[in-house]
């Protein structure tokens, strides 16, 4: 996952925290390997649904 030139490993919450991505930040997601397409699709759904935290 990338944000403003910084890169983090999406599998690690601590790594993601180092992105310093504030609300409204633009993120770039990249996945590779088996199931990469499905993973990105699932993430798109999560973002679109506000991670079930928005009404």
């Amino acid at each position, binding site marked *: 996952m990338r944000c403003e030139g910084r890169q983090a490993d999406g599998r*690690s*919450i*601590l*790594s993601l*925290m*180092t*992105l*310093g991505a*504030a609300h409204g930040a633009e993120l770039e997601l990249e996945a590779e390997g088996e199931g990469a397409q499905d993973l990105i699709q699932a993430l798109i759904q999560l973002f679109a649904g506000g991670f079930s935290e928005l009404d």
Partner: protein
Amino acid sequence: MHFWKQFRAKACSVSLAGATKDDVLRELVTNLVEGGSLAGALSDKAFVALVEREKMATTGVGQNVAIPHVRVPGLTQTAAALSLHRAGLPWGSVDDEPVHLVFTVLRPERAGEHHDPEQHLEMMRWIARLSRSSDFRSFALQARTRTELVDLLKEMSSV
């Protein structure tokens, strides 16, 4: 970067003793109050916020570290502490490992004279970088006094 200055030694601890997560959360709040980082009148609100946060999802980020980080109504500036639980405590962490190091961060609900959300986010990035550093973790676990914990934060302020 002087984020370490947000950590008062007296609000930190090298001897967390609680046997449950709730006990430890209460201990963390008490230490913040006794250390002069949190007004006593806000202690119940802070405790409730921490308990509710854990219910939403664990703050145990793995590698024996927990980062409980919540907004507290009525708070005007960040209150932070680094605390050590030598025996280790089950925290429902992402890697199922017990928690030994706890970064507690209470923040105001909104921006104000003493609270800059952008600086706050930078501080959280720094805390995440520290937590990922095996050097930091191993030195923190060896700290004998809370002053040593803050000295370590100062030493690693540019991590």
